[in-house]
């Protein structure tokens, strides 16, 4: 048995190295953020919070923060809500559930690059699909610039991500609703509760774990939307659709300001950790119980 344990530990070593490397790189990133850089070479001189001060002085940085919050609000809530309601409607289907579920879920298998290419065309003000259809039914599309206008661009982008991820929310909620005891719902129906009441007063409070999974995963997704921004608008018009990962890329690889890029990474790390650490602790309990 003892010999087996040694072998079992050997199986784990590559993963320990991998995970260790990941955490090592996080620490490395901290070192970079707190030291000075010349072109691409570290000076290894401790500069304290200077990189952060320079970052916080950028108006662009605060626009990025605001945009990240817009993503959190206008992406997570609608995606989860529509997914939840649709999942409830799905429980009424007698047939075709598998196919229909695939229709809503498959966009998730596409990359943000493909999604962005497709939707950039849909939103194109002069020859895009949406404006063409609107013109056909007699709407004046002159002011409808979609992703070409600073005040609508980010919402258009969020909608394309909604299209891509709603199926995820649907599947998570469908699993959770199926897992509820039917007796509970039937009892409520006996008492004359309306469908609306059943959905929001009885089902919703009992699928809290699904809501947690769904909102957390979508929140993490908003930290990864770099590709979509790059493809659809390159952060524009102006910097109106930039999000932190995009700013981080621009500062590091376009402006070659490694210190400030690393500082942005740390801001992203702090935001992500606030989501990921509590979620991982919660998820861990579920995994270990199984």
């Amino acid at each position, binding site marked *: 048995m003892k010999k087996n344990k040694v072998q*079992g530990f050997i199986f784990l070593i590559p*993963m320990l190295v991998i995970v260790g490397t990941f955490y090592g790189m996080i620490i490395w990133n901290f070192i970079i953020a707190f030291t000075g850089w010349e072109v691409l070479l570290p000076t290894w001189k401790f500069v304290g919070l200077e990189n952060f001060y320079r970052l916080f002085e950028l108006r662009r940085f605060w626009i990025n923060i605001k945009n990240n919050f817009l993503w959190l609000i206008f992406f997570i809530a609608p995606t989860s809500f529509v997914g939840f309601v649709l999942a409830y409607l799905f429980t009424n289907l007698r047939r075709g559930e598998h196919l229909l579920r695939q229709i809503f879920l498959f966009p998730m*298998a596409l990359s943000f690059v493909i999604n962005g290419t497709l*939707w950039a065309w849909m939103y194109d003000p002069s*020859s895009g699909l949406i404006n*063409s259809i609107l013109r056909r039914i007699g709407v004046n599309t002159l002011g409808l610039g979609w992703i070409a206008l600073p005040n609508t661009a980010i919402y258009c982008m969020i909608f394309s991500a909604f299209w891509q991820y709603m199926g995820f929310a649907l599947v998570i909620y469908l699993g959770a609703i199926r897992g509820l005891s039917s007796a509970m719902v039937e009892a409520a129906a006996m008492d004359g509760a309306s469908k609306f009441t059943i959905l929001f007063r009885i089902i919703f409070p009992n699928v809290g774990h699904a809501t947690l999974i769904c909102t957390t995963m979508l929140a993490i997704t908003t930290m990864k939307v770099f590709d979509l921004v790059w493809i659809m608008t390159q952060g524009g018009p102006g910097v109106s659709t930039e999000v932190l990962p995009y700013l981080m890329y621009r500062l590091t690889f376009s402006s070659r300001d490694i210190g400030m890029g690393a500082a942005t990474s740390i801001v992203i790390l702090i935001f992500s950790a606030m989501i990921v650490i509590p979620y991982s602790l919660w998820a861990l309990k579920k995994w270990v119980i199984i």
Partner: protein
Amino acid sequence: MTDQRFRIISVVVIAIMAVIWLMPVYTLFNTSFKTQAEVAEQSYISPPKRLQLANFIQAFKALKIGLRNSIIISSVATFLCIFLGSLAAYSLTKFNFRFAIPVFFSIVMVTFLPYQIILIPITHILMTLRLLNSYAGLILIYVILNSPMAALITATFFMKVPVDLEEAAALDGCPPFTFYLKILVPVSLPGVVAATILVFVQIYNEFLLGIVLTRGPDVKPVMPFLAELKGTEIAQWHIQMAGALITSLIPVAVFAFLGRYFISGLMAGYGKG
């Protein structure tokens, strides 16, 4: 509202939403088969007069190196991720190590943290190792970033394998690695397939590392190529759409044939067991 009426309303709402969801895909298909003159008419719903396969040939020419690179990189990296990940999952779920839970926790964290936070160190490591712009470099980074997820998903499936099976194998003198290869993996095959699909699609769809870690076209994955196609073929929507369609063939095929595993992998990965 009676149940009957509610059911009808449900079906109608779902049907309408399904049509909306398929709309972008329909026009993607439709446009990719049209000539530029037809696209200019902006009647996106009507089908093409003749199928323009030339669009696909033009798009494929621009993407083929990227497709080759992506297939090589994704296949090798996925294999390594699944192998190393499932071995670690075996180790963590079947040997009762006291440190298993903290290690598992750190794996979960790595799975969910966005890799942008270590983008600069990644670039430096590859620069130091002289692996920038090489298959080996990209594969190394993809393995570091995705094998934790493979471990996480396979572990949730390994946990369900009954202890008796292990004990019986141990009594027969079956060494751990043989048990892993001959019993554990075959018994949890759905989990291994689910992890494979998710990791493969994730690597294939990746974009940022593809642009940061490569110079020139030699080893660049397909997603940056598609992004470039979009840049060079401005307003050539039919070519762009053909390119998007070609690029999405692999993930969509995986999803169409193995969608069931895709879902079970998602569920496992996100903590629903």
